[in-house]
């Protein structure tokens, strides 16, 4: 009995027909993890004992009253706090840190009856797009282990792609759910800013961060987003917009859907195999009755520098809480309080994190505040206005999720600016606060390609409808990488 290729609905029907128990499902997730995680290295920590104990309790629950996610295994990105279970954000700074409360999303997946099986690797403090800046391990891409899984939610994407778990949670500040979903050939949603509570998310950039679901197919993704969404008194930026049953949007009907394709997203920087995959996807949607037209988002060419200024500025402020005193890493043998701060932070943070803290400190300093930080906030307004203008006439915006397939391990270390320019496809979405999904739409040299579908604020339903119609008309989501015994 393996979880690989099974949807939530299929697993639920196995549970209801008593062909499998929650405990057996949980055991099967762990046997897959034990089989392949030596190669994939997605998990920083597994919690087998706790998971099996919880599964046994869940098996006692009556069948009626069980929801669509009841008893199903999930992995949690390790920047989302879990009560009593070490949460590190893949940083030496938080090594050994055991939170005293659960993030709201963790409470919600527990309430839905899901079984958490462990914590997933990421770039340190979610700063990166390859998962290589983790202080603890390098996660591989299940489609080709010489390549990165993307990031920062690389562990979350790789675990789902490798069939270790059918569900995971990631977080997306500038593309960190969508880009690894694209690199690993799975479905990843960055919801509207405010749709999902950030309480218990280790903060990177407060005006950009959003937690999102990662799954093998669109329907499972819609189910998980319905479960984790909603206003939360512990996050004053969460929205009181009603949460629809997103699965109800999966009608398959995209007749008359108006699609905008920004010329900036399929321009010269995007190689032919990816351009072709996106054009082929547009043909598929057109054959289902949708219409598409080319549009322009004139300010997105400034999105990457805008993002780096805002994200670094907010991060430099957010990460000031790591002072070596109340929790986290503390330097030994210090002479005074000042040295406790400066050495704890110098020794606890990795290089990428320190670089962004320094850049953010510079951007917020008196001499540069106006021309860097405030100017980037103004350009952010222009970028958001570009989206608003397009959404007056169109239902969704479509383009590639990433301008490349998964990089080779170590490749981006040599060319860091390449990463920043690749971010131009994902960061505008966070700057505008709109929702966007990545779904598989092709392969190039055996590595997956992702299609990005962007929607209006709080209109994840139309994104899911479009993504689902495309998915059902294609077979990319049914392909699986060769790992473990099936190799």
């Amino acid at each position, binding site marked *: 009995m393996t979880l690989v290729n099974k949807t939530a609905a299929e697993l639920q029907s196995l549970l209801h027909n008593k062909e499998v128990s929650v405990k057996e499902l949980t055991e099967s997730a762990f046997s897959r993890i034990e089989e392949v995680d030596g190669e994939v290295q997605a998990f920083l920590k597994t919690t087998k004992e706790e998971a099996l104990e919880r599964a046994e309790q869940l098996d006692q629950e009556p069948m009626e009253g069980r929801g669509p996610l009841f008893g199903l295994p999930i992995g949690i990105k390790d920047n989302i706090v879990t009560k009593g279970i070490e949460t590190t954000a893949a940083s030496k700074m938080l090594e050994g840190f*055991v939170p*005293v*409360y659960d993030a709201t999303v963790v409470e919600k997946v527990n309430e839905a009856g899901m079984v958490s099986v462990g914590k997933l690797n990421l770039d340190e403090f979610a700063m990166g797009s390859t998962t290589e800046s983790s202080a603890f391990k390098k996660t591989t891409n299940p489609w080709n282990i010489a390549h990165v899984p993307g990031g920062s939610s690389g562990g979350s994407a790789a675990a789902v792609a490798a069939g270790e778990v059918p569900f995971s949670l990631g977080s997306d500040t500038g593309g960190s759910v969508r880009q690894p979903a694209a690199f690993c050939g799975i479905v990843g949603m960055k919801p*509207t*800013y*405010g749709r999902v509570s950030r309480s218990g998310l280790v903060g990177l950039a407060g*005006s950009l961060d959003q937690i999102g679901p990662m799954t093998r197919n669109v329907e499972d993704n819609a189910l998980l987003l319905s479960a984790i969404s909603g206003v939360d008194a512990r996050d*004053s*930026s969460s*929205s009181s917009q009603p949460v629809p049953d997103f699965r109800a949007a999966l009608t398959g009907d995209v007749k008359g859907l108006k699609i905008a394709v920004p010329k900036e997203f399929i321009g010269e920087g995007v190689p032919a195999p990816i351009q072709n995959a996106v054009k082929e996807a547009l043909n598929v949607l057109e054959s289902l009755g949708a219409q598409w037209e080319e549009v322009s988002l004139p*300010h997105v060419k*400034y999105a*990457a*520098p*805008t993002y*780096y*200024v805002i994200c670094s500025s907010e991060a*430099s402020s957010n990460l*000031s809480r790591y002072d070596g*005193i*109340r*929790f986290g890493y*503390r330097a030994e043998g*210090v*002479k*005074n*309080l*000042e*040295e*406790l*701060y*400066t*050495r704890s*932070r*110098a020794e606890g*943070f990795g*290089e990428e994190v320190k*670089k962004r*803290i*320094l*850049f953010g*400190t*510079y951007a917020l*300093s008196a001499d*540069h505040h106006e*021309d*860097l930080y405030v*100017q*980037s*906030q*103004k*350009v*952010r*307004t*222009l970028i*958001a206005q570009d989206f608003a203008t397009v959404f007056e006439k169109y239902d969704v915006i479509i383009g590639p999720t990433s301008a490349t397939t998964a990089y080779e391990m170590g490749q981006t270390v040599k060319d*860091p*600016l390449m990463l920043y320019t690749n971010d131009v496809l994902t960061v505008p979405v966070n*700057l505008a*606060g709109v929702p966007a999904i990545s779904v598989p739409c092709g392969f190039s040299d055996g590595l997956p390609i992702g299609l990005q579908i962007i929607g209006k604020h709080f209109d994840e339903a139309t994104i899911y409808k479009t993504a689902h119609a495309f998915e059902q008309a294609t077979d990319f989501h049914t392909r699986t990488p060769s790992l473990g015994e099936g190799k």
Partner: protein
Amino acid sequence: MTQFTNEDVKYFAGFAKLAVSDEEAAVYAEKLSELAGFAKELKEVNTEGIAPMTHPIQLYNVLREDVPVDVLDREEMLKSVREHEDGQIKVPNIL
């Protein structure tokens, strides 16, 4: 300024409370120069009359009832603290 010297790095590291060695300062000087050069193109955007965006979704007056609720247990929270005494967190000498 888009070219950082080692001294510039140490100046900003002072505000960020990061100890930086000379070797590290040289590394960060290069990386920060690269980022600052990259950010320079923002200056070419005409933003006259444009309001800065601080938050992607406009929410106003997010309030809650002023009633006491159970919060986290102090003993539990102190488990994360390296040094504490009588419920208070200890730090090294300040002066």
